[in-house]
Structures are given as C-alpha cells and as structure tokens.
C-alpha cells in the first residue's frame, strides 16, 4: 500500500477559524472516507497555526522535515499561502490550496482548487451590474485579498461605465464598521461588495440589517451585500436570519442537489450531526484530498512531480462536479454559483458550468459588458 503522509495546515482558531475548521473537517472526512477503500493509506499530520505567519511557516517546515509530508493541504488566507510557498518550494513539496483567492499566482508547487476571479468576481459582477446598477461600494479586509478584489472590482465597474461610490478596508478582526455603514447610508450604492473576513464581516452584516430596518432602501432586495468568501460555515456565528437575502458567489453550496452532494451530506450528518451545513471550504477540501489520493494511487508514489503529471489526465467526480486540474496553470476548473442566504442555507439563484481558471486574467477583455447599452441621456429643460 502506498503511504501518503498529508500535512493538514489550516488555521482553526483565531479570527477566521470557522473557515479553517471547515477546511480541516472536509479533509478529515475525506481521509475517514478513504480508509480501507483506497490503495493509498493516508496518514494526516495536522497543526493549527492560529492565524500567525510565523506558526504557519514553522508548522509547514516541521510537517515536511519531521513529519515526512511531501504534500500539505492548507492555508486559508493568501498571506499565509505566500508565507508557506517558499518552504514548500525549497523542499520540492506540494501545497494544495482550497480557498477562493484573488488570482495572479500559478506556482508549479501549488495545486489551486479554490476559485480565482474569473470564476467568482467576474461572473458575479456580470450578474450584479445589470441587475442592481453600477454604483458600487467596496468594503474589504486590509490585506491582499481585500486590496486586490477591490482593485479588480473598481476596474470592472469603471470599464462598465459605473462608479465606485466609496471604498474602505478594515484590519482583520476589527469590528468597528460604523464609518462604513455611515458612508453606505449617505452614498446609497446600488450594491456593496464585501471582501471582509470573519468578525468584521459579521459585524457589518448585522449593522446592515439594522440599517435596513431603519430605511427599507438598504434591505437586501434593494441594496444587497455580495461576497466571494461568505459561506454556510459563518451563518450561525452571524446569527441565523440576520444576513437573509444577502448574496454570495461560490463553487459549491450545501443546497446543491446532486448525487455526489447527497452522498457527502449523508456522511457529514452521520459524522457531525444533521444541523451541520457543508460549505464550499469543506466540500473543496474534501474533494481535494480525494483528488490527491487518486493521483497518488495512480502513480503508486507520493513524489510530487509524478503526482502532478498524474493529475494532468485526471477527471475526478466530486460534490463540486467533475474536478479537473488544468496542467498549464495547476488550477481547477470550477463552476460558478450565486446563492442567496436563507436561514442556515443558500438558495441557488444562478449556476454556470465549470470554467477553466484564468489566474492572470489574460482573457478578461471580453468578459464583462457594460450594464446597459443605452447611453445615459436625460432631457433637461
């Protein structure tokens, strides 16, 4: 039997712990699932870096050097991924990154199974601009994810003839959202893009709920908050019902009605109880471990170079649909789903089939059309 020692490196405590816990649980569920059912024996080596760069680097080094791992699934934020990559590169190991991110990266030692902007932000704005309007407010976490997502959103909106009516970033963990809410109330955008994480995002959604109560113009049906990182795993923490009506883009929602997803949900219910919802973080991590095991099984070794070439010809069934890694970019082909929050779930409003990732957005020019082909003319008397 081939042994796969797999580093599981997610920050499960700290500000974005809910995301990390879903990633970890997804990976562990896949490992349980494959026990005895696969020619590969997976031995997990788990560690919680608690959102600290130093701990991420130290744990990655130990997993590889002392734990004998040649594959590590992990990192939640792009900051953490960029911290860990040099450790991975130096030892010729392989990182499996499962979270949505801002693109502009394609490292040979990383397999990306989370979405990048042509799979989340661009299709999201293709829907939002015509449907809600072109006056957009941008709120973000004050690091690379927030900065780059806001930059790209600004580019897309400006090209479509729209306007960014305000932009603010909060440090991760900061819940002082009053100023953002006041700006939103004053400038009345058509919708808000939130790239905030964890507590900031939760505080903002609660505050928007209050604003909507005071003024119906800010209820989700008129002025929704949209996001590319909010999933089922944070809804209980925000308060069920609080964010109802707000929107999010993802490659997976728990409510997806497919055979593969029903199978996963049955497993999750058995393992974690029937209240537990599966997020895209959970499902992607689950699918990624299975994909990794399948590739290792095919080549009979965990040698990263051989595993990468085995991946090139693989099309693995998964709860996200058939999962394929583009050998040119090491990114997964992923579907786009638009969901509306309803209680603990997302109602799927729109879906698009899996798209090839374009991490450097070299094919973007034709992607987003102006919201309205009609010139904005008014009769003035």
């Amino acid at each position, binding site marked *: 039997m081939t042994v796969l020692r797999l580093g599981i490196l997610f920050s499960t405590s700290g500000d974005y712990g809910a995301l990390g816990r879903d990633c970890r649980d997804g990976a562990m569920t896949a490992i349980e699932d494959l026990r005895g059912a696969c020619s590969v024996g997976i031995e997990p080596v788990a560690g919680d870096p608690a959102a600290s760069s130093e701990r991420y680097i130290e744990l990655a080094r130990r997993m590889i050097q002392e734990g004998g791992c040649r594959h590590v699934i992990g990192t939640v934020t792009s900051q953490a991924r*960029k911290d860990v*990559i040099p450790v991975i590169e130096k030892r010729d190991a392989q990182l499996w990154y499962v979270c949505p991110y801002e693109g502009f990266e*394609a490292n*040979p030692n990383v397999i990306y199974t989370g979405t990048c902007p042509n799979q989340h932000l661009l299709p999201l704005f293709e829907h939002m601009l015509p449907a809600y309007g072109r006056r957009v407010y941008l709120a973000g976490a004050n690091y690379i994810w927030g900065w780059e997502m806001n*930059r790209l959103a*600004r580019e897309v909106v400006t090209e479509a003839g729209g306007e960014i009516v305000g932009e603010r970033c909060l440090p991760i963990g900061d819940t002082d959202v009053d100023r953002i809410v006041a700006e939103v109330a004053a400038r009345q955008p058509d919708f808000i893009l939130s790239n905030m994480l964890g507590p900031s995002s939760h505080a903002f959604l609660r505050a928007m709920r209050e604003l909507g109560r005071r003024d119906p113009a800010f209820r989700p049906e008129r002025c929704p908050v949209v996001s590319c990182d909010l999933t089922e795993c944070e809804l209980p923490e925000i308060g069920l019902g609080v964010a109802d009506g707000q929107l999010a883009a993802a490659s997976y929602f728990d409510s997806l009605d497919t055979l593969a997803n029903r199978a996963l949900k049955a497993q999750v219910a058995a393992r974690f109880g029937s209240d537990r919802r599966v997020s895209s973080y959970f499902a992607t991590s689950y699918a990624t471990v299975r994909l990794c095991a399948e590739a290792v099984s095919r080549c009979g070794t965990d040698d990263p170079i051989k595993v990468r070439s085995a991946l090139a010809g693989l099309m693995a069934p998964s709860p996200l649909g058939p999962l394929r890694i583009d050998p*040119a970019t090491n990114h997964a082909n992923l579907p786009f789903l638009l969901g509306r929050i309803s209680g603990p779930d997302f109602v799927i409003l729109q879906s698009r089939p899996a798209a090839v990732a374009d*991490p450097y957005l070299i*094919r973007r*020019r034709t992607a987003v059309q102006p919201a309205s082909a009609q010139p904005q003319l008014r009769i003035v008397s």
Partner: protein
Amino acid sequence: MKATLSFLGQRAVILHRPGETTDRLVRQCVLLGFRAEARWQPLRADEDADIVLVDADEGWDGILPWTPAEKPAPLVALLASEAPGRIAWALDQGADALIAKPITASAVYPALVMATRRHAETRQFNERIRRLEERVRLRPLVHAAVRTFMAADGCGENEAYGCLRREAMQKRLTLEQAAASILASPRRQAG
C-alpha cells in the same frame, strides 16, 4: 488607475542556455499569455519580440541587435551573479528589470510588468528629450523670425513674438516651424 496588463498574443524571447531556468520562464510566460521561445542564440534585428529576457551571467555584447538607446522592446536581465561586471553589463544593455536566478515562479510576472512600464516610460522620456532638443536647436530661427516681424511691422519684441505665436497657431505649426516658414518666405525677407 492602471488597468491590469494582459500579454495575450505577445512574443517573449528568452536568451538563455536551455534548462530548468528556461523551463520555468517559459511556463510562467505562457501562463501570462505570451508565445515564448527560449534559445541560446543572439536575437536577430529582423525578429519581432514584444519582450526580451537575457542571461546576464553569460550574455555577451552583440547578443542583442541594438544599442540601449534604440532598444525597441522591454528587456529583463536574468542574473545569478553578484559580480559588479555582470550587473554593469545588464545595465549597459538597458535592462528595465531583473529576475534573480534560480527563478521562482512569483518573480516573473512582477518583473515583466515592471519592465514593460519602465520601457514605455523611457521611450516617452526619450521622445520628449528629442523634441526639446529639436526646439533648442531651432531657437535661433525663432529669434530671427521675431526680428523679421519687428523690422517689417516696426513693432517691439513682445508684439513681434505675439504675431509669430498667432501665425503658428493659425497654421497649426510649432513655433519653430512657423519661424522657419516665415524666414523662407520671400515677402517677409523683402520686408
């Protein structure tokens, strides 16, 4: 705000001995939309290259078919050495950016974007300097034209200069071109 650059369909030429360095560079260039070619042969003057990456460790004078002043494309130096002579060689070729060897994937896109911007800016600066030098060179013509006006119309220098400017604006010429045309006109000369 600067738009996200796309290199789709452009041609990158990598002048470097084939090996891991060129494999990595070609991979990243292709991801960025380039058609990439790596070889250890000089660049030909008749070749179309939208960006050139050259080995500064072993490159020699003449591997590029141009002087830095007339460099038609952005140039990126690939350098492992810290030797002052090799750094100077890269600078002398007009390198717009540098990628340290061994190549890490994340070093490529920033260097190519930076080289592209730098090269475009350098060209704009050079063009501006060329235009300014031309104007300085033709300054005596302007003086001569002003004196011609003064003599012909019996006016002061300021007024004569104003006449010249109006004439240049009406005919949509530069001040220098207008001055040259006035001096070439027999009527004005006669006046």
